[in-house]
């Protein structure tokens, strides 16, 4: 009850913070976007990056790098970062599980498994159907994890959900490895993709996956206010007239679409969905009308930054982005367990 009593003042405070932080966050994302475009195996001065957009000259090598190679990658990083952060935020709200995240709950493994199987069996990569395949896999994995957790004593608690997710991930990862061994040739091309890297994919896929992600992000914004109510508990939400069952289905579909689009683009990228919503919640409280849009912004900036760092530290080689996000995310996971679990 205290939460309801405190709500008006708290939300007014968050309203000011939320509105005033908006230009700052947008600016930060723009700066990170520019930085991402400027650095890499070959540094390009910011002025030249700027020129590449205003006076594009295909005969200039630097312009070509920026427009043809780095721009698609930067857009991918921003889009995927936003999508994963938002899907993590939605999952955490709906399951009331501070550890929820598409990677930990097995959705990424499901999407990857489906993609690997389809690519392996039909020896066909990319194209229009890839996000659909990934979405199917993510959805089935999500349902299996939920069923396992529901079946365990005590029902779908944060603990059982996390354990079920970890188990399903291990299982599917082992199956992917077996498939890889059985048909080495057709899987060779998926190796880089499976570590969660932004480097492997072409920009053709961006045109396929971007609509998915944009539609799902818009849906997430629309659902945000109801998720806030749902996060207070099913009874409260029912009492306030929210059809909880239908809302959960909508959120699940939204999360599946976000995960599937991201996996199709860059492979299974863990822990982004865990880190960002928690960071955002530190500043903007528990109102999902703020958490969702800011998760999108901060997530975009975060992945742009991480991808830039992943290309910088071992230049001219690069570390798979998924490794860097895990290095940042896993300690936070441990910290959350330390704080939250009884």
């Amino acid at each position, binding site marked *: 009850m205290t939460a309801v009593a405190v709500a008006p003042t708290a939300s007014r405070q968050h309203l000011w913070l939320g509105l005033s932080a908006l230009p700052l966050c947008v600016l930060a994302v723009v700066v990170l976007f520019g930085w991402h475009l400027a650095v890499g195996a070959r540094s390009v001065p910011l002025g030249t990056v700027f020129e590449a957009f205003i006076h594009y000259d295909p005969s200039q090598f630097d312009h070509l790098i920026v427009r043809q190679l780095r721009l698609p990658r930067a857009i991918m990083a921003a889009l995927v970062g936003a999508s994963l952060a938002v899907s993590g935020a939605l999952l955490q709200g709906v399951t009331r599980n501070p550890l929820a995240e598409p990677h930990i709950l097995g959705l990424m493994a499901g999407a990857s498994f489906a993609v690997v199987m389809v690519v392996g069996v039909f020896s066909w990569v990319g194209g229009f159907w890839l996000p659909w395949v990934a979405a199917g896999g993510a959805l089935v994995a999500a349902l299996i994890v939920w069923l396992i957790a529901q079946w365990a004593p005590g029902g779908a608690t944060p603990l059982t959900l996390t354990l079920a997710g970890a188990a399903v991930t291990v299982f599917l990862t082992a199956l992917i490895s077996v498939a890889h061994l059985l048909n080495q040739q057709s899987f060779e091309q998926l190796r880089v993709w499976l570590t969660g890297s932004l480097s492997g994919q072409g920009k053709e896929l961006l045109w396929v996956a971007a609509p998915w992600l944009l539609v799902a992000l818009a849906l997430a914004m629309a659902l945000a206010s109801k998720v806030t109510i749902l996060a207070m508990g099913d009874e409260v939400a029912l009492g306030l007239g929210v059809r909880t069952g239908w809302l959960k289905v909508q959120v699940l579909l939204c999360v599946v679409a976000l995960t599937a689009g991201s996996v199709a683009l860059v492979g299974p990228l863990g822990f982004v969905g865990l880190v960002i919503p928690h960071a955002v919640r530190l500043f903007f409280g528990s109102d999902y009308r703020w958490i969702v849009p800011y998760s999108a912004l901060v997530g975009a900036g975060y992945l742009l930054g991480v991808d830039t760092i992943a290309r910088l530290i071992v230049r001219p080689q690069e570390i798979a982005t998924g490794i860097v996000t895990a290095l940042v995310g*896993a300690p936070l996971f441990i910290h959350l367990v330390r704080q939250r679990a009884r």
Partner: protein
Amino acid sequence: MPSSSLHSHWIVRLTNERLSLRVPRRAVWVLLGLLVAVAGLIALSLMLGSYSMSPAEVWSVLLGHDAESDRATVVWEFRFPRTLVAAMVGAMLAMSGAALQSVTRNALADPSLVGISQGAGLAVVALTIVWPELPAAWRPWAAFFGSLTVAALIQALSWNRNGGSSIRFILMGIGMAAFITAITSALLTYGQVERALSALAWLSGSLHAASWSEVKLLVVWLLVLLPLALALSRSMAALQMGEATAVGLGVSARWVRYALISVAVALAAIATAAVGPLGFVGLIAPHAARRLARAGVGLHLLLSAALGATIVTLADLAGRTLFAPVQIPAGLVTAIIGVPVFVVLLHRAHAKNTL
């Protein structure tokens, strides 16, 4: 019912009554059965493979006849050491799991689930990539050091004012495993290619490269660690009756716990150092052993070991024959079998008490 329980046990007494044991008959028969099964599987895996042999041919090779033939090379150089390594690694991982489960009182504890195997993995990969000039004999020590560090970290992190909690222990382990895996992958991506490749083969948990040097290593460590684990099992039994009872019986709870964790970690680390991380054996074997026969802590440890040996020998045999000529690493086979078992354990009411 004391009468029936006496009936199902053998009573073993030394003449001066300094030591008397009550041995459950069923458990002894199951243990013997499992040992026969392991022996049978070893024989089977000497025969099967890309070069099939009849039992008579294998037997004559083992007796030392036609020592110069290809058959002798296949059996002595490849299949025999590999199978022995599989059996011993299985036994060690199973005992490690059994000991961990009883120390943490967590039915789901497994060296690969809580990051202990990954710690060994990271240490060995680091050794291979950063100091390739060091001999392979350093691997077990590196693995032990890596595992022990992780075990200590998880213990320290999952401890709070209310004491250690098994939920925190296992979730913390999952996070730790993810973190360590990321560092290992980072080492692999920017280490030198040929060194990274040799580390990579080892990481998939394959017995492919097992040779007599691994057999020797495992035998030596097993001869040290098995008696230690059995010696500690009596105190472990006292601990399971509750800390107060244990202290009343003259057992130092803290000391026994540290000793047992060290033995469990050492067992998992040596096994991992020999063949790479093999998941879920330490989880499945103790539970399955308990279902086959109820036994006291010490006998249960032996039962788990025999069952673990059976599982890994079978997994290796299946992995290298089912999809021949492609070899599926035993680690993948145990993960695929292990996860459904894990799910069932999660469901069982037994797990509820300990979670």
